[in-house]
């Protein structure tokens, strides 16, 4: 039997404006000119694919939808080929709408404040350096597979109190859910079940031996009536933290290194002025935003003057919004010291990414530690860069040569 890791093919796109497909290889490889074409055509475009799907193309249209929880539901957050029944407590709070959203979100916010992240920073630096130790002597490395990929997964494992050595297991689940699951329901369900079973084992262990990690934190949390959370809620939030914590920041770190490998001037500037790294991180987040969330239209309305009909999905492309030249001058260029930058890489409105402070810290530390030890690197012309598909965009293979070119 053929390996199921290849999703079912969609017919190639010939008319991007009326028939777009974010899983098309051309989009996966280089979406930027496509977004520009769509934006020039309309602030909201539509495709019949994925059982009907809109995509806002401007910052303004994305903002309108993100703030309109009455017409746009978060009960489905990935644009896929199928619309199975909505599972209760799938991954709260990201899958919740008001009014149940707020308490679920407030529960997760305190462990992810900037101050909480500061405490985690030394552990992150150690992880980055351990990873670099593993390949620096080789003179070449796949920076996505051996560096970027393991930083966020080990961070979130550390916070959840699950073994960092299980990282490959987690990464495989995420791949099944966020990429293969777009077109293959069975892969998604399998990963969700395996993940839930894994967390149930950990929950059981903590009943007899409580710890101070995020699993125990959720187990001890109380709702507003003072009752413990339902187990399905605890499991849903744990799945969310693992899923949301991994691919996203892996992609952001990978894209940043990809940019720096191809842009020696930016690299040299960051080495000379490390204080600029936090500002550069914001610009890299803007230019290469990894995450596109989805919404489901539940009530007819208009967005930027365009009618949208219930029953369709929405590809809520924060990355495309961040390339809108009306909001960002020279939107198609990476301006490493851009000062005015209200990018939407972490979303807008009530669903702002809970882990944004963690992601920012990881990106800063990952770039700082890398640039300190590996100031010179470039793409390996003998290798190929590949990009992930769908919900989260980032390099999955990133072959680099390390050191000065001979």
């Amino acid at each position, binding site marked *: 039997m053929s390996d199921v890791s290849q999703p079912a093919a969609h017919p190639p796109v010939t008319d991007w404006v009326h028939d777009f497909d974010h899983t098309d290889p051309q989009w996966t490889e280089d979406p930027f000119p496509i977004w520009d074409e769509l934006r020039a055509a309309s602030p909201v475009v539509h495709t019949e694919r994925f059982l009907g799907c809109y995509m806002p193309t401007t910052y303004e249209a994305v903002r309108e939808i993100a703030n309109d929880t009455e017409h746009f539901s978060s009960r489905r957050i990935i644009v896929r080929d199928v619309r199975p029944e909505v599972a209760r407590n799938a991954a709260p709070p990201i899958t919740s709408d008001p009014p149940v959203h707020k308490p679920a979100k407030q529960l997760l*916010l305190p462990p*992810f*404040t*900037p*101050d909480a992240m500061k405490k985690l920073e030394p552990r992150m630096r150690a992880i980055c350096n351990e990873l670099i130790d593993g390949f620096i002597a080789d003179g070449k490395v796949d920076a996505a597979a051996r560096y970027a990929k393991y930083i966020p997964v080990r961070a979130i494992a550390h916070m959840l109190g699950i073994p960092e050595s299980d990282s490959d297991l987690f990464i495989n689940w995420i791949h099944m859910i966020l990429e293969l699951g777009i077109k293959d329901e069975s892969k998604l369900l399998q990963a969700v079940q395996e993940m839930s079973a894994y967390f149930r084992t950990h929950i059981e262990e903590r009943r007899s031996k409580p710890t101070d990690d995020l699993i125990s934190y959720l187990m001890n949390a109380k709702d507003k009536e003072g009752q413990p959370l339902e187990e399905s809620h605890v499991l849903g939030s744990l799945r969310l933290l693992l899923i949301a914590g991994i691919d996203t920041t892996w992609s952001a770190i990978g894209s940043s290194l990809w940019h720096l490998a191809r842009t020696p001037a930016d690299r040299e500037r960051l080495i000379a002025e490390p204080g600029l790294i936090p500002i550069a991180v*914001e610009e890299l987040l803007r230019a290469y935003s990894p995450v596109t969330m989805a919404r489901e239209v539940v009530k007819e309305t208009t967005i930027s003057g365009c009618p949208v009909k219930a029953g369709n999905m929405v590809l809520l492309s924060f990355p495309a919004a961040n390339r809108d030249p009306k909001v960002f001058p020279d939107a198609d260029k990476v301006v490493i010291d851009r000062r005015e*930058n209200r990018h939407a890489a972490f979303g807008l409105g*009530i669903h*702002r990414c809970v882990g944004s402070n963690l992601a920012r810290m990881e990106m800063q530390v990952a770039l700082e530690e890398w640039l300190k030890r590996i100031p010179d690197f470039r793409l390996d012309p003998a290798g190929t860069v590949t990009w992930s598909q769908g919900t989260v965009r980032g390099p999955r293979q990133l072959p680099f040569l390390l050191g000065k070119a001979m």
Partner: protein
Amino acid sequence: MTERLRVHVDPDKCQGHARCKALAPELFELDEYGNAHEAGDGIVSPGLEDKAWLAKSNCPEIAIDVIEE
């Protein structure tokens, strides 16, 4: 004539992106959920004016007002 600046965070709009605190730690504080409010009465001490405008122009939720008094 010197104008005084005051910053104000609209708590209904703020979603806790924490950009303001990162860019102007003297002018903003975060609560236990990471949501921001202006430090003290929000008055911008001389020399911090740029930081106030910078925070405003980096808030993704357009939650920050800089008021000239």
